[in-house]
């Protein structure tokens, strides 16, 4: 693709409103629970009160006798073939360690029985009458002691790992790997300055406003139809076929509008329950997770402990980074083997002048809620650790942390050994950092300034990268057909979860086909109809599916030209299509798109449609710099957000309004992670963070001001030069805010969240010194 002049673009790089905005702002019934038939059976789950237990007896007779109860299912009713709920391309790296219902309970909240009935009241009543006798077992709750613990989370023999990820269920190990380049120990030993620290990030909830939900029914062909709030419809089809042990052709998955995902819905959290009810009873069924369930039996971010060693020479060249990550996948291995990889592969390559690096990791099973995918997908945790270590290194060297970064940051054209030796063909990280410094007034404010009222303000910095899809894996396909009057149907398998991908893909199509947005109708995902797409995750849609749109449009334009030439009685080489007319350049005769669209519906042997797929051997990273300004109350240690300057290089910005909101939203989530959000368990493994009373996500009073700008590079392999935006945006707040606290109060917090208590205690320690 040639490099376009941005000013020549009509739709790409313009803030086009979302194609579904009107129905969303007027509250139309477009979400899963709005669409579910009113006669759906209500499905609810009886959950384990123990972190680790075996069901010795389960008696459902009294529950079944409650009027209105259709069925009560236990592990005895479910296939004994293990599968994973992770929405990943087959063969999934996540181990096959699940059953729909299992005899072994692996966390407080694990599913023990499924109850389905005609009303909420009947089901609630029946749930209380399911009699379960548990043999309570000792749980593994400390992830630092999980590996090779005599207590096994998955002792079963039919556990299986499909990919070589270093998993071993007899060691509580979900994954293990080591990689590196150069002699890291020798390099670190010869460095003038070395920082050797351990950082701890907690599990976090995506907390999308719409909880997990699904309804299911059998259609006229006896097939299982599944309408679900999911990011991965095609993977859900496979997961349900695996779970129910039925052929894939018996399953159809439809994605309506989704009330947010952030990765949570890249795991098939809710689908299996109504699916088995409908499959067994033939009746429509739905499950709506309560917020409590969504906070206690879902798919949060992996807790990680990260040991970083980083060394530099006396001039400030960072010569080596050594990272070991211990990741807690909880009771099941969804996304365990893959998230951990990003903790090193998306943090170490930020520094472009190293002589050596090493990255090793273990992922362990424990008896807490299973982790999953959350925006950033391990990069967030790794970047908190590596960026915090670099900030500590700067302090040790007496150097401004932005200056240390300017000396070392990765630049365009460099090969990144820790990023699979990919070369950065597009990188404006240097400009991002320079602009963020200007926006915040770094040189004026660094490291801190007194406010005079017992409060002090400090600034802190961090950088980040992510990928654009999974190289060699993610596949997006697109189909476009022309209809009567020449309007187009754009069929995508990528799942708009509120982010606006239906819109930006339509923008690209309108650009390529030189038509207006109104000429394109977008069809959401239906696995029976939509072309295959891995789904919306791994920051893939703009880059991967976007390229599929560009390829499909090129093909369709060729067809339009040839069909138009046929009607004009000339050769296809002689015509030109300008989006409205096909014109014979030799005699000026033309036929309109509208006429072509109508003509092909009569006595035609040519279908005016095209479908193309795209997959990439590389995953071009977007880059960004974030600078936080915080105010600290010296009496209480309370940290308040004042300002956040974020500058992002996502290549060409396809839709400036939607991209800006992605950045602002990601930073607000990152602020939540940095300052408030924490999943707290008691000593028996009970999750205390089970409502928005305990699990506090930021309100509009908690985020300060968030300012966003773009410094675009041009990615030659992306559609119109674009890279991804969705995930990178959550990665800078934790390390930047920690650094601002470090600069303002002299206190270094290495375990998130950065609460007032931790800062206060740190200030007290410092006073003693």
């Amino acid at each position: 693709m040639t490099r376009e002049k941005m000013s020549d673009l009509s739709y790409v790089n313009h803030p086009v409103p979302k194609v579904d905005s009107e129905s969303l702002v007027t509250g139309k019934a477009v979400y899963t629970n709005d669409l579910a038939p009113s006669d759906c059976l209500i499905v609810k789950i009886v959950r384990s009160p123990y972190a680790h237990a075996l069901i010795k007896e389960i008696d459902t007779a009294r529950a079944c006798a409650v009027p209105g109860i259709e069925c009560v299912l236990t592990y005895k009713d479910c296939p004994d073939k293990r599968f994973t709920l992770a929405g990943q391309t087959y063969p999934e790296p996540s181990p096959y360690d699940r059953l729909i219902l299992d005899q072994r309970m692996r966390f407080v909240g694990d599913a023990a029985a499924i109850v389905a009935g005609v009303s909420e009241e009947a089901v609630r009543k029946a749930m209380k009458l399911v009699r379960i006798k548990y043999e309570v077992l000792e749980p593994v709750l400390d992830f630092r002691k999980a590996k090779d613990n005599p207590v096994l989370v998955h002792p079963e023999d039919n556990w299986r790992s499909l990919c070589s990820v270093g998993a071993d269920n007899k060691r509580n190990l979900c994954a293990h790997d080591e990689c590196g380049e150069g002699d890291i120990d020798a390099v670190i030993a010869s460095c003038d300055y070395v920082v050797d620290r351990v950082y701890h990030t907690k599990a976090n909830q995506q907390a999308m406003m719409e909880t997990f939900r699904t309804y299911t029914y059998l259609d006229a062909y006896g097939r299982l139809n599944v309408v679900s709030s999911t990011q991965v419809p095609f993977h859900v089809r496979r997961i349900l076929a695996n779970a129910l042990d039925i052929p894939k052709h018996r399953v159809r998955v439809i994605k309506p509008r989704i009330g947010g995902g952030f990765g949570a819905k890249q795991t098939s959290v809710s689908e299996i329950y109504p699916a088995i009810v409908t499959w067994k009873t033939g009746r429509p069924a739905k499950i709506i997770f309560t917020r409590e369930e969504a906070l206690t039996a879902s798919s949060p971010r992996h807790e990680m402990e990260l040991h970083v060693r980083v060394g530099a020479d006396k001039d400030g060249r960072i010569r080596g980074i050594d990272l070991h990550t211990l990741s807690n996948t909880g009771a099941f291995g969804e996304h365990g083997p893959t998230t951990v990889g990003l903790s090193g592969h998306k943090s170490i390559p930020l520094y472009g002048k190293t002589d050596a690096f090493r990255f090793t990791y273990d992922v362990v099973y424990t008896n807490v809620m299973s982790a999953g995918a959350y925006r950033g997908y391990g990069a967030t945790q790794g970047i908190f650790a590596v960026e915090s270590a670099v900030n500590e290194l700067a302090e040790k060297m007496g150097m401004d942390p932005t200056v240390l970064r300017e000396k070392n940051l990765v630049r365009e054209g460099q090969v990144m050994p820790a990023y699979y030796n990919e070369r950065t063909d597009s990188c404006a990280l240097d400009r991002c950092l320079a602009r963020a410094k200007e926006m915040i007034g770094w040189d004026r404010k660094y490291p801190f300034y007194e406010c005079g009222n017992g409060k002090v303000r400090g600034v802190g910095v961090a950088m980040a990268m992510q990928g654009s899809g999974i190289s060699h894996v993610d596949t997006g396909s697109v189909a476009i057909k022309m209809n009567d009057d020449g309007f187009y149907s754009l069929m995508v398998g990528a799942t708009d979860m509120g982010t606006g991908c239906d819109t930006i893909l339509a923008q690209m199509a309108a650009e390529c086909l030189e038509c207006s947005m109104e000429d394109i109708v977008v069809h959401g995902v239906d696995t029976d109809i939509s072309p295959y797409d891995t789904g919306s995750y791994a920051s893939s849609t703009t880059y991967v599916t976007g390229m599929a749109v560009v390829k499909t449009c090129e093909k369709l334009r060729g067809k339009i030209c040839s069909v138009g030439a046929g009607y004009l009685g000339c050769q296809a080489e002689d015509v030109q299509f300008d989006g409205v007319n096909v014109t014979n350049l030799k005699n000026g005769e033309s036929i309109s798109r509208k006429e072509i669209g109508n003509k092909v519906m009569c006595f035609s042997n040519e279908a005016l449609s095209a479908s193309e797929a795209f997959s990439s051997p590389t995953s071009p990273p977007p880059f960004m710099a974030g600078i936080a300004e915080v105010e600290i109350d010296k009496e209480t240690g309370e940290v308040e957000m004042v300002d956040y300057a974020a500058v992002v290089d996502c290549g060409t910005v396809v839709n400036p309004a939607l991209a800006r909101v992605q950045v602002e939203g990601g930073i607000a989530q990152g602020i939540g992670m940095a300052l408030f959000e924490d999943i707290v368990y008691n000593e028996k493994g009970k999750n205390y963070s089970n409502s928005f009373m305990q699990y506090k996500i930021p309100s509009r009073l908690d985020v300060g001001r968030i300012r966003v700008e773009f410094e675009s590079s041009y990615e030659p392999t992306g559609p119109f030069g674009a890279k991804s935006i969705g995930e990178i945006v959550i990665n800078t707040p934790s390390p930047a805010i920690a650094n601002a606290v470090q600069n303002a109060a002299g206190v270094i917090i290495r375990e998130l969240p950065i609460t007032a208590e931790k800062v206060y205690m740190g200030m007290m320690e410092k006073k003693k010194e």
Partner: protein
Amino acid sequence: MEIRFILNQKQVAVDAAPDAVLMNVLRDLGCKSVKCGCETTNCGLCTVWIDGKSRLSCSVLAAGVAGREVTTLEGVEEEAAEFGRFLAEEGAEQCGFCSPGFIMNVLAMVKEFEERDAASGSGVWDIEEIKEYLAGNLCRCTGYMGQLRAIQNYMAERRGAAEGREMKEVQA
């Protein structure tokens, strides 16, 4: 028990249990804009108006609105669409799941502030005041900045339109 109230300017009578929650009753009556996000009165998604004031319909018994006037987004569709255009211009409706409750509270706020301004003659709206008014409306997608830009643009246009009307009146 039978409960009679006015829903979106129409008299309705529903048969509901004494412990039925207003939110569920409204959804059953077809007001699908009313959403549930938390069950603990933290999120603001279920905001409706009772006698013109914003209330969380998840924490009001249906029996409590007997004889009163309930308004959901379906009842103010035109105003919602008008403000919604500003929201969409910023891309700040995003997933849209919190939009109905948020928009109900924005419209209530604008009405309240404009009435206050009309009484006092002043017209300066403090951003902090706006943020505090809407603090109970959580949003996980936008980071709130785009919502604030939409509100400011919407209010500026309303003020412009009002001033325009005054100008015309003066000219006339």
